[in-house]
């Protein structure tokens, strides 16, 4: 084991130096450190933050792979027309799709990780703390929640903004108020709206070809609905395509099936909170049902621009757009979410509820998950406050029956002939 000893020597050499965190980040990536317990208990469980983050990344990998194939599939289908009698192996898992997807999606991943980790390393070296693992997940989430053709420089700018303003100014991993990945997404959305919305951005080359004879379009399901084109949408995509994800959208968000598997994996491994996921699903269903009821009562005329999205069956909201992805991978971020178990129910519920609400009422962009989660990030401490106050009140109530006994007053202190040394 030459490598182990060599790394150990370099570690000792760099100890206390400015660049130590940068080296240690690589070192602890290769080897779990030789640190032993020196306070409190003498043994520790095996889980650490790296393993936790790694588990989330494992749950994201299927979405990334699917996103790569889907990027190619959507492009070729938009150019050549969607295949009749779709077959998974013949039309989806092909080298062409993979290659096109790889050259469009992997640069996003590389830029996201490269820029984000660079910022993390710089902050770690300046502030003299270890490089923390939070960005490992953020860096994987970011490429999955942007349109496939997002220019790399835009992504780089957004990542710098998100990591610095969203996280580092608060003190780094564990201290941030807003989900960094969503901060990056929100920055892109508000700074470069033309690259984030519309019917051209979701398919590779959609923007370049716009206005030419070869123009292609890849409207999202929600886009169709927002424009009231329900028939056109149903003609193009059926339910199973929506569920399995053969539809246009951000890179990794389309396959509800794989997201569901990822979510179940995260619940099974106890890494993500099932309370948040379940309550968010409930919240979105409730809001969807309310909208459906409004339509059933006939309060909204058919020509209303909200009609298309409002009449969309309540449970279908979960299988289109970014709602499922947001619920499983973003709402469950423990740092920015509610920290109490009871609070998580409220937190998750309102994420689902508000997501569908924004989705329906947002005139420019028919999606609201990221805004709903950011909004609830801000309210999570408030929710926790009220939950914790419940415990405090219970303790105060108990205090009324406290048996506080008077001091003993015999004071018969033994005579002491103390010979103090």
């Amino acid at each position, binding site marked *: 084991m030459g490598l*182990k000893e060599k*790394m*150990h020597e370099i570690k000792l050499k760099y100890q206390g130096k400015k660049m130590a965190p940068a080296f240690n980040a690589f070192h*602890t990536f290769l*080897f*779990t*450190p*030789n*640190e*032993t*317990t020196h*306070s*409190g*208990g*003498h*043994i*520790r*469980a*095996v*889980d*650490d*933050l790296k*393993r*936790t983050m*790694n*588990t989330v990344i494992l749950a994201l990998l299927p979405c990334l792979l699917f996103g790569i194939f889907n990027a190619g599939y959507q492009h070729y289908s938009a150019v050549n027309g969607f295949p009749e009698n779709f077959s998974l192996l013949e039309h989806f898992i092909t080298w062409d799709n993979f290659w096109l997807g790889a050259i469009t999606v992997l640069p996003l991943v590389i830029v996201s990780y490269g820029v984000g980790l660079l910022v993390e390393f710089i902050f770690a070296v300046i502030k003299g703390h*270890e490089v*923390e693992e939070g960005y490992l997940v953020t860096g994987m989430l970011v490429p999955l929640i942007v349109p496939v053709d997002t220019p790399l420089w835009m992504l780089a700018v957004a990542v710098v903004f998100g990591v610095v303003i969203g996280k580092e100014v608060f*003190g780094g991993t*564990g*201290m941030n108020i807003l989900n960094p990945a969503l901060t990056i997404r929100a920055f892109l959305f508000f700074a470069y709206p033309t690259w984030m919305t519309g019917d051209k951005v979701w398919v590779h080359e959609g923007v370049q070809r716009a206005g030419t004879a070869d123009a292609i379009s890849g409207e999202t399901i929600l886009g169709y609905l927002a424009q009231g084109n329900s028939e056109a949408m149903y003609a193009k995509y059926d339910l199973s395509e929506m569920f399995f994800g053969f539809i246009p959208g951000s890179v990794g968000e389309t396959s509800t099936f794989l997201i569901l598997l990822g979510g179940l994996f995260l619940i099974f*491994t*106890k*890494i993500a*909170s099932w309370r948040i996921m379940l309550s968010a699903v409930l919240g979105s269903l409730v809001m969807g049902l309310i909208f459906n009821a409004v339509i059933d009562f006939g309060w909204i005329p058919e020509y209303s621009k909200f009609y298309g999205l409002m009449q969309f069956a309540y449970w279908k909201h979960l299988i289109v757009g970014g709602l499922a992805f947001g619920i499983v991978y973003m709402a469950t971020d*423990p740092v920015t*979410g509610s*920290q*109490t*178990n009871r609070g998580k129910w409220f937190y998750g519920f309102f994420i689902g509820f508000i997501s569908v609400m924004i989705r329906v009422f947002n005139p420019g962009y028919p999606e609201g998950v990221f805004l709903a989660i950011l909004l609830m990030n801000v309210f999570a401490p408030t929710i*926790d406050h009220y939950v*914790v106050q419940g*415990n*405090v009140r*219970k*303790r105060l109530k*108990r*205090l009324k029956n406290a048996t*506080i*006994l008077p*001091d*003993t007053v*015999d004071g*018969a*202190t*033994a005579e*002491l002939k*103390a*010979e103090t*040394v």
Partner: protein
Amino acid sequence: MSKAIRIKKGLNINLVGAAEQITLQAVSSNVYAINLNDFHGITPKMLIKEGHEVKAGEPLFYNKNREDMLFVSPVSGELVEISRGARRRILTLKILADKEQQYHESKPIDLGKADGAEVRAALLKYGCWPFIKQRPYDVIANPDKTPKAIFISAYGTAPLAANPDYILQGKEQELQAAITALGKLTPGKVHVVVGKDSDSPFTAIEGVTLHKISGPHPAGLVGTQINRIDPINKGEIVWTLSPQDLIIIGEFLLTGRFNAQRTIALAGSCVKAPKYYTTKIGAEVSTFLYASGVKEEKFRLVNGDVLTGQKIKPDGHLGFYNNTVAAIPEGDDYEFFGWNKPVFNKISSTRALTFSWMNPKKKYDLDTNTNGEHRAFVVTGRYEEVFPLDIYPLQLLKACMVKDLEEMEQLGLYEVAPEDFALTEFICISKQPHQQIIREGLDLLHQEIG
């Protein structure tokens, strides 16, 4: 009459090397030591100088803030060394034991007649008081206060810890005397908690409120039991004692002698033949450690159980409150890709490619490696699964870290001791020092509010 308590939340840490239920007499130690760190918050004032002879049970020093609280020598011999640290703080006292032990005799207490004040004065004067600890603050009890109740846990769930039922066998007389005496010190109840199916000698003792508890660790911690039976409110005081110390108190009451003899468990995967030993408080650990033999050269010796004890060297001495000495492997080695490969040989509270959930009965050989680096609190909801108290652990820890006295009070810091956070510390993904955080929080609260 006993009441059943069932603890659901928690985690049993099954380790290799539990002590076999055979008790051997340890060879007597040449030198005995009293470690002043055992008495948290006590400022000692010496009563004798180096070179003086003492008898077993004769006072060595007293509490500076409470002059009638005496601390006595466990053996008779010569006080050979007072080692001091920074600012001349006394760290340890070493006593070279006589071949023939002599006892500092006093009159046995007539428990039929004695009242509370008499018992209290005797316990203070003859060195038995320090066995009584109080909550809030987890310090030696303040004799001026009257506790609303006294709690004794005779159920051991900590990993590798001595089995109370076993070490208390045949000590009914002493236990009865101690319980009778303690009953005079409180107008409330003396609660004793035993395991559900235990044959504890406490079942035959009069004057106790017996509870039967079942469930994983920390069901055996007195803090868990208090929280279930009669939680502490602001302003209230409860006292807690370990059952093995009741034997010393009881024997003192019956005979007038302070006999520091104690049965301890020597356990851990680095011990060749883990067994119970009869020895005395302050005895050198090597007197029994090498009788059982050690397996590896690099091991960590823990004075107490592996979740709450202190690190000592083989020439260290048995602590004042401990009934367990454990030896586990030192884990100061790197592990290649230890953070992402599947793990089968270590305990985990998740299932993130860790497989201890598949076989909860399996015994593990854990070392002292932290298995990761210290981080800020990130993950939530994990502590609650192993923390059965009606308290928000994460929030309380954070309140202690930011020194928010009001919040510390409101969230229930009065009810806990550092040991109650040993399990959350064990599973902590951010490797935060929970026990230290709680200890500092308690000290701050004690100092500011008193």
